[in-house]
């Protein structure tokens, strides 16, 4: 057991523990973290597709669909129930992904990205145009839902939401990691390198990609419901292309090779953005741009990749071959 392997093994747990302690240690960051964790689910969705080498510039679509579905449900039930909202929102996103996916998975690369963008923009326009139903650009307010039938005050609710979100993120990470390591997940990663061979193995690349597409949409949907619940409002901006771009941005920042990149990337991104907006309100975009450039030019595998090469160095040379799984930027740790 090398130092490096130890660090790699311990670190994710240490990070999760640190996150779990935030409400006690630094309560001011609790809500911000809830939002960041919700967003990291959507980033995870984008990472799933990146395994197949496909990048969607419109995944905010699924983020928004679920958030609006949950908002309508909640408002029609006078607040609603958080569990029901999560299930309904996620199912709605997945169902829409299944329907449009049948068409979308026929395309690759720029066409894949642009068609997703187009879908999200159409939905965005729809949200703005049908303002009688959707509240237009002001959006819909989301009443605080009950939690398993209990109506909670703001404080306890936010705490429950934080731990609930953290739990869902951990669950989603484990599940997605297992999916990506499974035969179908590996077939999806095979789409990136050789679709011809995949077809010559008797596998429909489109069906495999569709499975990934639906999963990624479901993850985005889950994130969308949590985000709108935490914010108490959902606006068309949820579907805006800049938000889709943000998901991709964060995925690369964290490291698209690994599911953990979603969480690490989102936390880093929100930290940079929050502090840049607070202390350099005029040039926060520029700061984010520079961060992105530096990451891509000097750490193309993202923060996770950077961390791995760092532990590799301090972990010293011996036992190189013994720990192959850690060596590769694989489907995650």
């Amino acid at each position: 057991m090398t130092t490096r392997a130890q660090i790699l093994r311990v670190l994710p747990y240490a990070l999760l523990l640190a996150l779990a302690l935030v409400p006690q240690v630094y309560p001011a960051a609790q809500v911000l973290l809830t939002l960041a964790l919700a967003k990291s689910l959507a980033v995870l969705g984008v990472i799933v597709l990146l395994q197949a080498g496909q990048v969607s510039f419109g995944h905010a679509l699924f983020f928004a669909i679920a958030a609006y579905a949950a908002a309508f449900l909640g408002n029609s039930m006078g607040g609603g129930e958080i569990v029901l909202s999560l299930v309904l929102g996620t199912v709605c996103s997945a169902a829409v992904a299944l329907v449009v996916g049948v068409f979308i998975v026929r395309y690759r690369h720029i066409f894949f990205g642009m068609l997703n963008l187009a879908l999200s923009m159409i939905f965005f326009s729809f949200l703005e145009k049908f303002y009688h139903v959707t509240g237009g650009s002001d959006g819909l307010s989301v009443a605080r839902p009950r939690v398993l039938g209990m109506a909670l005050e703001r404080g306890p609710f936010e705490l429950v939401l934080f731990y609930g979100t953290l739990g869902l993120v951990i669950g989603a990470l484990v599940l997605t990691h297992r999916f990506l390591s499974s035969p179908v997940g590996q077939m999806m990663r095979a789409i990136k390198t050789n679709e011809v061979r995949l077809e010559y193995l008797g596998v429909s690349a489109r069906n495999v990609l569709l499975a990934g597409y639906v999963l990624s949409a479901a993850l985005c949907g889950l994130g969308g419901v949590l985000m709108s619940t935490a914010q108490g409002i959902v606006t068309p901006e949820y579907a805006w292309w800049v938000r889709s771009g943000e998901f991709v941005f964060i995925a690369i920042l964290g490291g698209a090779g690994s599911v953990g990149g979603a969480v690490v990337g989102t936390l880093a991104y929100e930290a940079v953005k929050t502090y840049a907006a607070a202390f350099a309100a005029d040039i926060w975009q520029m700061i984010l741009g520079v961060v992105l450039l530096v990451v891509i030019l000097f750490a193309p595998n993202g923060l996770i990749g950077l961390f791995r090469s760092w532990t590799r160095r301090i972990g010293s040379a011996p036992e190189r071959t013994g720990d192959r799984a850690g060596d590769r930027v694989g489907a995650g740790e």
Partner: protein
Amino acid sequence: MKTLMIASAMAVALAAGSAAAAEKPDEIRLGITAFLTGPASVFGEPAKAAAEMMIEEMNAEGGIGGVPVSATFVDEGAGGEALLAEYRRLVEDVDVDAMFASISSGNCTKVGPLAEDLKVLNIMWDCGTQRIFEENDFRYSFRTQANATPEMLATVLYLLKTKPDFKTIAVVNQDYAWGRDSWAIFSTALKQLKPDVEVVAEFFPKFGAPDFSTEISRLQALRPDVILSTSWGGDLDTFVRQAAQRGLTNNSTLVLPLAESSLERLGDALPEGHIVGTRGDHYFLHPEKTGNEDFDAFVAAFKEKTGAYPIYPVFHMSQALAAIKAAYEKAIAANGGDWPSREQVVDAMAGLTFAGLGRDVTIREDNQGVEDQLLGTTMHSDDYDFALLGDMMMFDGDAVTTPVGQISADWLKTLSPDFVESVQVETFN
């Protein structure tokens, strides 16, 4: 006996004081949200500059109750989450005494419930949606200016008073909540006050549209008597310029409720004879305030600092600052001269009357400000190289604001054509 009475009086006073008086802070911290990036920075930038100037001036005169004021600015352009996160950070970490939020109505809607949760005085210093206080019952949020309903209603009244015989109207608004809502209010009011007007076209080009050529061609073919546009910023500038370039302004009267904020930029592109609103009584040549030493000095200093004359967000900012100052002073007075708690300052906002750069504004019981409305018709003058307002009319805020407890859409439907004559109006030339 006498000493005893004094002693017990002092004891009572001390007890009361220790119960109610807060420790006098080193400074009053404000958090101000405004667009510093994006298209709406046309409002955020002047407002920020104005806030800095006014706070500096306020502090030079001893601040509020002897306590200096400081402000932290937050960019609304960074998006909804960043705004909410930063709002929380300012309240919970920086421990601000009051928040001024925001320019965007969408952001006001988001921030309102949050302020209730955080129990922080929240002054909605610029947003215009009438829904805020009609659909919510907030304790901590107040609006120190009018809202969309009086602004649109006054516009309809001005139009009917100056151009009573028009028959057709078209609308070109930005495709977002403000564009839609303002048209809903305007058209509802117009239908009640002049039922025979025909709406010949409704265009909602997307926000930030760079080109209105097709809309203008169509409008030229339709030749409506009046064209309403509640657009602002670059969108309004582009529309007015393209309309003027192609002669649309010769055949139709433009009604532009937000154009006061574009007058200087538009220069001579905005011809004479079109109706311009000011979202209140906000105008750098305010008919009652010009000649007032402070007003003129501020206008000159602002022009000197920013290169432009103050526009309505500057007035809005002055009102928000005036309100917080007045609220603190009222709360201090109510507290027997002791420093008030934050809750006492919030209490003091109720029914408060204050004046920024314009006329007095009063906070109603539903926390909505009542503000008079100034409109005018463009005219050119040799003194300025851009259009000024002539034929100005000031509409009484109480008369045009939806009564407390009523929903604007419903209230407007109760109006009838004789309402036009019933509203008190002052004219200036």
